């Protein structure tokens, strides 16, 4: 079983992200990076599958040089191969450009299953996984909150508005997994040590045959303006001196809500 995980390495989630008004892109330099929690969930799910059925996991990320930190984390968790799509030519890619690059990288070796996070934690467009599946011509099973592989087929519980649906397909297929699907393992110290020495293969846009097809110049989506949202003015903030609950009731009553 060869399971490929696509995951992002993102700026530290405790730092509020900013957009550079000139390039209209998220500022990613000078901020600590970490493996996207959505990617860690996808890696965990992949490892559970190969732990049960044998085989190995490949982790692919497209991102800046700092993204190696996330690849090493994936190695430490138990991933066998790490691929880093690293090239200035990728910068400014829109979702479809990103999906084209990832699909081209996935296609380089035979695989059984691709696992993505339903959405990345920094840009959460949530459409890259299905784009990848369509480009690869494989079935997409999305919004999985539980996954099982039996023989040559995959079965998921797909989140729905009213509960969930059981969805099945034959392999090879792509699944996207929701946040909270699992508790990603804590990398064992041995894994962390070994991860430091593992090689990371890097690929450029031309390595993937995508020169000119990705990056800002090829992007279909163009950001026109970067602006501030309309402000909502803050109301009153009070210390609870034993009257807090009553103050809320007074406001609710004044606004006709009780």
């Amino acid at each position, binding site marked *: 079983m060869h399971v490929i995980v696509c995951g992002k390495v993102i700026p530290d989630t405790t730092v509020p992200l900013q957009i550079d008004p000139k390039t209209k892109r998220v500022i990613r330099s000078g901020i600590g990076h970490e493996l996207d929690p959505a990617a860690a969930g996808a890696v965990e799910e992949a490892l559970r599958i190969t732990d049960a059925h044998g085989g190995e996991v490949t982790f692919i990320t497209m991102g800046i040089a700092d993204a190696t930190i996330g690849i090493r984390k994936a190695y430490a968790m138990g991933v066998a191969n790490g691929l880093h799509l690293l090239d200035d030519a990728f910068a400014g890619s829109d979702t479809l450009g990103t999906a084209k690059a990832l699909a081209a990288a996935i296609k380089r070796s035979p695989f059984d299953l691709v696992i993505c996070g339903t959405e990345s934690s920094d840009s959460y467009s949530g459409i890259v996984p299905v784009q990848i599946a369509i480009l690869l011509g494989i079935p997409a099973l999305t919004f999985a909150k539980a996954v099982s592989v039996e023989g040559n087929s995959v079965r998921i519980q797909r989140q729905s508005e009213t509960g969930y649906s059981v969805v*099945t397909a034959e392999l090879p297929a792509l699944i996207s997994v929701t946040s909270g699907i699992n508790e990603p393992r804590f990398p064992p110290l041995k894994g962390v040590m070994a991860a430091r020495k593992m090689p990371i293969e890097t690929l450029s846009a031309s390595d993937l045959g995508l020169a000119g097809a990705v990056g800002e110049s090829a992007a279909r989506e163009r950001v026109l303006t970067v602006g501030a949202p309309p402000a909502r003015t803050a*109301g009153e903030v009070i210390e609870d001196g034993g009257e807090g609950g*009553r103050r809320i009731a007074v406001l609710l009553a004044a606004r006709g809500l009780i």
Partner: protein
Amino acid sequence: MPERIWVYGEVSAGAITTTTLELVTKAAEVGTAEVLLLGSAPADAIETLGQYGASKVFRSADPIFDDYLILPALEAAAALIGQQQPAVMLFASTYAGRDLAAGLSARLDCGAITDVGDFALRDGSVEATIPALGGAYQNTSTLVSEGTKLLVVRPKSFEPTAVGGHPEVEEVSAPGGADVRRVQIAERVDVPVEGPQIEKALKIVAGGRGLKSAEGFAMLHELADLLGAAVGATRAVVDAAWVPYSMQVGQTGKTVKPDVYIACGISGAIQHLAGMKGSKTIIAVNTDPEAPIFKIADLGVIGDVYLVIPQLIQEIKQRKGLIS
């Protein structure tokens, strides 16, 4: 001639979804609203869509759309878009909406804009307003590809307004073959939620990690019952499995705009605010004076939920004459 604006129509729990009607309303304002409605739908679906401004409905009731994920809808939509060339197609940011928009953007090689809060057409190009990075920014984007522009819109971005009308119906043929039957929906399971649904509720009491445990939600349910409110939650507590996902409010949960939203032990992370900051009145209870939720609250109480909320419950009971 007004531009043709398509809407991907969705049905949930046996009714056309409110979000579909929001999109149809907006489409009819901007141009000529037309709806693509695939799979099973209630008997009055066409009439309802017409009421909200649809001039035409492209319709197939073929069960293939209910039984197989993404691919039949993708084939049908791609073929129709090729034939009809609408200016814009709108999708709700729902599971089905996102999947179909994603599939079409790759199939038609045209890209898509997601998380759209509003849009306008200017000389044949589309300008979408996006609350980027969870609403920390408000950006505008366009699509430079030729052909139909695909926009994935956040629920509750527009007010659904009935205007009356009777749409023309054009039957659409369903795709066939094994290729579109590769992802099978084997079973649909409804997970019942207690009490009112948060998307429709006019009052919401929501809880976060500050409640410390799943048991804390009992207190919120008591308050909600007294107010006739629904109970919501943050992703942190949904991920911790204290409450089901259907209760999650925010970027990756539900978008709500109730008359009042009472946030209990919720920090106010930008992804949570993305789903509730349109509420008319926001009340927050949090021990941390620096909690970002206070920046958008009409009334913030710096205090312990386990002291403030029981007092609020007592107070409401007294005002209702339930206790003296």
